[in-house]
């Protein structure tokens, strides 16, 4: 890489109101603003009315600001944070269907699953499905090696992430919301 700073990935999480069309609004904004995203995953939270998105972008610090400030312009976005700016935990899950139609490939797969946090979740006569849940880089490394054996099908969830410790991304109550807007910068 010519410049590691240039290539740095940012993991942005967004709390969104759980209502129809929110994903479309976010996806449309990325397309319209010409922001390239690595992955986007959406899921529910412990609050029924709130969903959470994890968005990985491959960009500089300034562009992370652009992404976040444009996300915040969308009305149903409640709050955003760049969790990669500080200590955080991130996980990517992949289901990888790998050729296993001879002794050699089966042996190689067993070794691979010992080396990585991966396990075989379905076994057939010709192929097996391996599940791996790990940091993105580890998943990438696993995939590279599994491909030596022969990947025939694959699906990934995209990264989900959470800041460590007591930094909690939550829906602000009225008082907090006032303070956030009084503070000049929302991002």
């Amino acid at each position, binding site marked *: 890489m010519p410049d590691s700073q240039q290539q740095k990935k940012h993991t942005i999480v967004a709390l969104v109101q759980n209502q129809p069309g929110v994903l479309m609004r976010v996806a449309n904004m990325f397309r319209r603003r010409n922001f390239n995203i690595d992955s986007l995953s959406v899921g529910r939270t412990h609050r029924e009315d709130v969903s959470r998105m994890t968005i990985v972008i491959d960009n500089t610090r300034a562009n992370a600001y652009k992404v976040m400030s444009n996300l915040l312009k969308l009305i149903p976005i*409640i709050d955003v944070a760049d969790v990669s700016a500080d200590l955080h935990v991130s996980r990517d899950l992949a289901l990888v269907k790998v050729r296993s139609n001879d002794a050699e490939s089966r042996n190689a797969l067993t070794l691979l699953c010992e080396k990585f946090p991966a396990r075989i979740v379905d076994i057939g006569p010709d192929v097996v499905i391996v599940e791996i849940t790990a940091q993105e880089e580890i998943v990438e490394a696993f995939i590279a090696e599994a491909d030596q054996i022969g990947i025939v099908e694959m699906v990934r969830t995209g990264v989900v992430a959470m800041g460590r410790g007591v930094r909690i991304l939550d829906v602000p109550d009225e008082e907090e919301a006032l303070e956030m807007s009084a503070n000049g910068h*929302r991002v």
Partner: protein
Amino acid sequence: MAKRLLSGSEILLECLVEQGVQYIWGYPGGAILPTYDALPKYRDRIHHILVRHEQSAAHMADGYARATGKVGVCMATSGPGATNLVTGIATAMMDSSPIVCITGQVPRPVIGTDAFQETDVTGITLPITKHNYLVMDIHDLADAIREAFYIAASGRPGPVLVDIPKDIQNQKIEWEYPTTPLKLPGYRPPKMATQEQVTEALKLINEAKKPLILAGHGLMMSGSTNEARELAEIAQIPVALTLLGKGAMPEDHPLVIGMMGMHGAAASNYAIQDADLLIALGMRFDDRVTGNLKTYSPNSKKIHIDIDPSEINKNVKVEVGIAGDLKAVLTQLLPGVEQNSHAEWMGKIRDWMEDSDERDIIHRDTGNILLGAQVINDIWKHTGGEAITTTDVGQHQMLEAQYYPHKRPLTMISSGGLGTMGFGLPAAIGAKFGKPDEEVWAIVGDGGFQMTMPELATAVQEGIHVTIAIINNGFLGMVRQWQELFHDKNYSETPMFSPDFVKIAEAYGIPAMRITNRSQIEGAVAFSRSYKDSRVPVLLEFVVEKEEMVYPMVPAGANLHDMVRRPKVSEE
């Protein structure tokens, strides 16, 4: 108030009344019919104006909003009615104008079946609205309307669309006006600057030797023109205006040095390039303002204050970026601003202004040839510079910007960001509804005028006195200018036939006059003013030189200081 049995349409109209809506610009059709059925019951409170094309309904709501600062409302049916609004919505979006658009939608049971006149209008308008709603439950309708108005008018204003299926308009429920607070946990427009930002900004302002204020539309929308003027006067900082910033400071004020950008005053552009501090207030460093970003104001530090955080560092990197409400932030800054004179800097700018004066075509005798610049200049002179003007986009728009200095905020209404032809006439009609006691002029070109010309009928039907000044050069003038400068005078599809505009006016019952000589302009203005109390529009056709150029000009993407200038007489 006790609950009453009301239909969705009545709930909608009750909510509009509650929001203080006086006017709706719209056009009926199948999917919005229940609402039009309920409208006569509200006739004493809401006046509906029947337009001739839905695009104009959005422009009229926009013109009303820009002239008054209130939210403008337009209404259309599903399908083609809604898609016709699109250009008007995009125009309002680009210029941050608060409008609410109500559209009818096909009944819920047939949504998604490609029913007659069905269009996914919330999908279509998603990137050109600040927010939009498809109401799928009548119990959500009132909150959708309340939120729409709140979102449209607050923060960085913009258009909001509410799409209402026909069966919801017909459905009846026991209803009373909701008093619960709106649930918008993620909508928090920024307000104040942090103390740190105030300190940094003041340090730059008080230490600058060659500061310049860039005044934008945001100053007027936030109601902070007085604060900006105070800032300029205390520290004697010259002020350059954006196109939509015209009127943010009186243009005859000694500190105002003119418009900036592609067709801005040369002095403004030179000052931007030479400044050591830019103080950008409620503007967004549009490419028409900056020219080549790489060479833009290379020696200056920059303070940018704007309500929209995503505008900070978007195009131009700044030293102090403050996302906040201009009125609040300027109020924070003012006590710390030190008195200054900047006499040397102002002297330099005055020299540039004098040089521009020597080049100005307005001071030349062109004999029998009538120029667009002369027309606008003389309209300005004979209306005392007090009129509200609206424009389309193109040469006449830039000439208006150059030759009609405005004294008051919100008196120049133009499609700046989207550059929409056909905006001028409907925007003028909308503005006149909002400001009935003011003189309103639509300054348009022969091309743009023909795009929304049918709205002459709307003006006549409504008894609206606006003056339409057509600057007729028989060309799509600005495109022709680009063809002359950058395409070897290859006038591909820019010469344009027009009908006899005076006869067209007569057909509508509109008094009209054709002007071909500069000596007639004063009389034409008097002619228009003589109809002031007669509730009819007036049409003035100015037949001008075909191949007039608008100078100065920064070619697209060129350095801001590399303007194509009009030569001085001595150089010609």
